[in-house]
């Protein structure tokens, strides 16, 4: 039977198992929206397309399934760019559909025309302009396949208006044929054996774990490996949740605002095993002083271009983290060694570092410290709660002080550092998991970048609990200005604007405020027990800084403790 492009679009999404779309209608996608009205797919009307992409991203991070976003041409499409780069930097599977002016008008500077295909070329894993309705189903099949296989990432599908209206025979392909695309999953066995041998002999090994462990769902294998070898684990910002922070082998996050003991362990390790991590500059500090005692660096990455990019690797293994770890564990099980005894002195050294310089802050009676709020949230939140963050001090304190125990409970913009990510990402996760608690930990600056999505949360009764750490400043900017720019706080003061309780109420959400330390726990308790979307403003100390800190360009060893 013949179907129009818009019907093919919806049918194809159903074939892909899509249950939710985050979007915003406009002129050239009205045919699609018309068909969507009767489709068994939930659609969240986001208030800005950036919010739509972040929501799709939050949905994807929380579920592991591709998030879907739909926007109109021109400004609708360009508003998606920040979200696409965010997803691209963190390797998050999303499919972004944009409308386009009719094929006959492309290139004529038509109303609401933007070359979104050209604009987003460096922002996506892959992209398409569908010029013939006959190509639509195959393109959608490929888009979903590419987004979620190999190293995941955003895929753009630009659909001209006439393509959504024209009719053709609908046949959804069973498989994709892409001669230029064949990701490697299984690691090279020889390399795996070499890695096993090196790991077995190491005296002071460290597992350095990134977002790749989360995206390949490798938390069980990671834990098995760490416990088998009695090896300490440190995670990157994106790796949080892949290893329980409550585990005796967990060292927390490493890098610029990582723990003292994780960074020292990296400096003193004789073997570093990078697992789905890419040696980002925020992790390594100054490169020529990085891992100076490591005789061996092993690196698993599904993306060959990450291997040897910043740091020399002795044993590279291209492959999927879960698959490679499985074969590595099998190889290690044939080696009989008492790693518990072997690594006891190393673990003891790390414990000494942790005792000497724990993460700390001084919570007095008067002003609330941001870190204290995170600890309170961590204490109150159920184990399976999902945490979304903004970018800056709120994000770093959350990474340091929240005790993650499960993967895919942590939504944060790591690579791009996108302020405004928190609220829409929380909405995306809440759509995926209506029954779970989704908590946003945001800064006042970050929140204001996408605060309009409160309307979305209220409209669809999405009970996200957003906690705004309000210090009246762009806190991390202020921190850098204090430390590196002679305390000249150039344009980083936001003031006490707006009144967040009133703002919440204006949208029809609930608003709470805590300004004193003793109010924090009871206020959060009330907020978390209140149905529907809730904004909780906690006024925090604007003088407080995120420590430890490795200044940009310094070596990990040169971290400033307070």
């Amino acid at each position: 039977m013949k179907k129009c492009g818009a019907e093919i679009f919806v049918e194809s999404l159903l074939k892909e198992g899509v249950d939710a779309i985050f979007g915003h209608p406009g002129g050239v996608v009205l045919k699609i929206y018309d068909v969507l009205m009767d489709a068994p797919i939930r659609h969240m009307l986001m208030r800005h397309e950036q919010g739509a992409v972040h929501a799709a991203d939050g949905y994807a991070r929380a579920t592991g399934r591709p998030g879907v976003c739909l926007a109109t041409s021109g400004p609708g499409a360009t508003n998606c760019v920040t979200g696409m780069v965010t997803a691209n930097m963190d390797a998050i599977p999303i499919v972004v559909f944009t409308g386009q002016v009719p094929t006959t008008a492309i290139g004529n500077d038509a109303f609401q025309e933007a070359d979104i295909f050209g604009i987003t070329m460096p922002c996506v894993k892959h992209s398409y302009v569908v010029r013939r309705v006959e190509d639509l189903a195959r393109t959608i099949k490929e888009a979903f396949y590419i987004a979620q296989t190999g190293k995941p990432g955003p895929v753009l599908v630009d659909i001209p208006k006439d393509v959504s209206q024209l009719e053709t025979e609908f046949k959804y392909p069973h498989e994709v044929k892409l001669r230029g695309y064949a990701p490697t999953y299984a690691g090279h066995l020889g390399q795996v054996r070499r890695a096993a041998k090196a790991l077995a002999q190491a005296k002071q090994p460290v597992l350095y774990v990134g977002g790749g462990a989360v995206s390949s769902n490798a938390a069980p294998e990671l834990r098995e490996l760490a416990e088998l070898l009695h090896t300490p684990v440190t995670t990157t910002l994106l790796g949080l949740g892949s290893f329980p922070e409550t585990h005796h082998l967990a060292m927390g996050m490493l890098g610029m605002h990582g723990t003292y003991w994780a960074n020292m362990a990296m400096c003193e390790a004789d073997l570093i095993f990078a697992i789905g991590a890419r040696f980002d500059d925020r992790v390594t500090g100054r490169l020529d002083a990085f891992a100076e005692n490591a005789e061996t660096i092993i690196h698993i990455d599904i993306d060959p271009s990450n291997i040897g990019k910043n740091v020399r690797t002795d044993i590279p293994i291209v492959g999927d983290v879960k698959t490679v770890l499985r074969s590595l564990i099998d190889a290690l099980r044939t080696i009989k060694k008492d790693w518990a005894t072997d690594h006891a002195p190393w673990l003891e050294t790390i414990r000494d570092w942790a005792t000497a310089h724990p993460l700390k802050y001084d919570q007095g009676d008067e002003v609330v410290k941001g870190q204290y709020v995170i600890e309170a949230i961590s204490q109150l939140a159920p184990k399976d709660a999902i945490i979304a963050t903004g970018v800056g001090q709120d994000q770093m304190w959350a990474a340091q002080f929240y005790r993650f125990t499960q993967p895919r409970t942590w939504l944060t913009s790591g690579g791009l550092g996108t302020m405004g990510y928190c609220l829409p990402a929380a909405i995306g996760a809440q759509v995926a998991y209506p029954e779970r608690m989704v908590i946003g930990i945001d800064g006042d600056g970050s929140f204001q970048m996408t605060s309009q999505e409160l309307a979305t949360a209220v409209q669809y009764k999405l009970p996200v609990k957003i906690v705004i750490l309000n210090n009246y400043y762009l806190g991390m900017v202020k921190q850098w200005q204090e430390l590196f720019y002679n305390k000249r706080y150039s344009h980083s003061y936001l003031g006490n604007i707006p009144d967040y309780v009133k703002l919440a109420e204006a949208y029809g959400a609930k608003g709470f405020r805590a300004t004193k330390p003793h109010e924090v726990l009871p206020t959060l308790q009330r907020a978390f027990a209140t149905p529907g979307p809730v904004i909780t403003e906690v006024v925090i100390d604007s003088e407080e800084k995120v420590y430890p800190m490795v200044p940009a360009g310094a070596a990990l060893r040169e971290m400033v403790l307070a």
Partner: protein
Amino acid sequence: MVQSMASRQASHQADHDQGLRAHVISVLVENRVGVLARVAGLFTGRGFNIESLVVAESEEPTLSRMTIVTSGDTRIIEQVTKQLNKLVDVIKVVDLSREHFVERELILVKLRAETEQRAEILRITDIFRGNIVDVSPKSYVIEVTGDGEKIRAFLDLIKPIGVLEIVRTGPVALSRGSKALS
């Protein structure tokens, strides 16, 4: 397993013996909208050099073959090939400079050719097995084909005579022997 522990930086050390040299990279791509823009954008976005880039349909109409001349140390060239391979529309990438290959470039040179120089120009063109493809009372257009060295040598001789315009295709290249990329 023991090696220099002084620096873990993916370093340029190994390149001192090699220096920054030109690499000829052959890339087989889908013959599709946007592929050239994707490849060119990758080079600018990541700060890689393009000395020349030639692309046209290959032996198979759905495939195009690109010949890219770029330069960089081994780390950069490794990144160039890996990043190219990541593109979904890129089917195969080979750094021809690592093997034996043939390379040809076509050049058209428009020369001022007054009476007294015409014989000399003809002789040089003949030596380089070039052709005069356009003649006017005061000018020649010469076509010469060859590898980089030959083109350079030809230009060295012809430039002092009075070049009006030069256009070059940039090199195209294939590996020697029966091995094929596709």
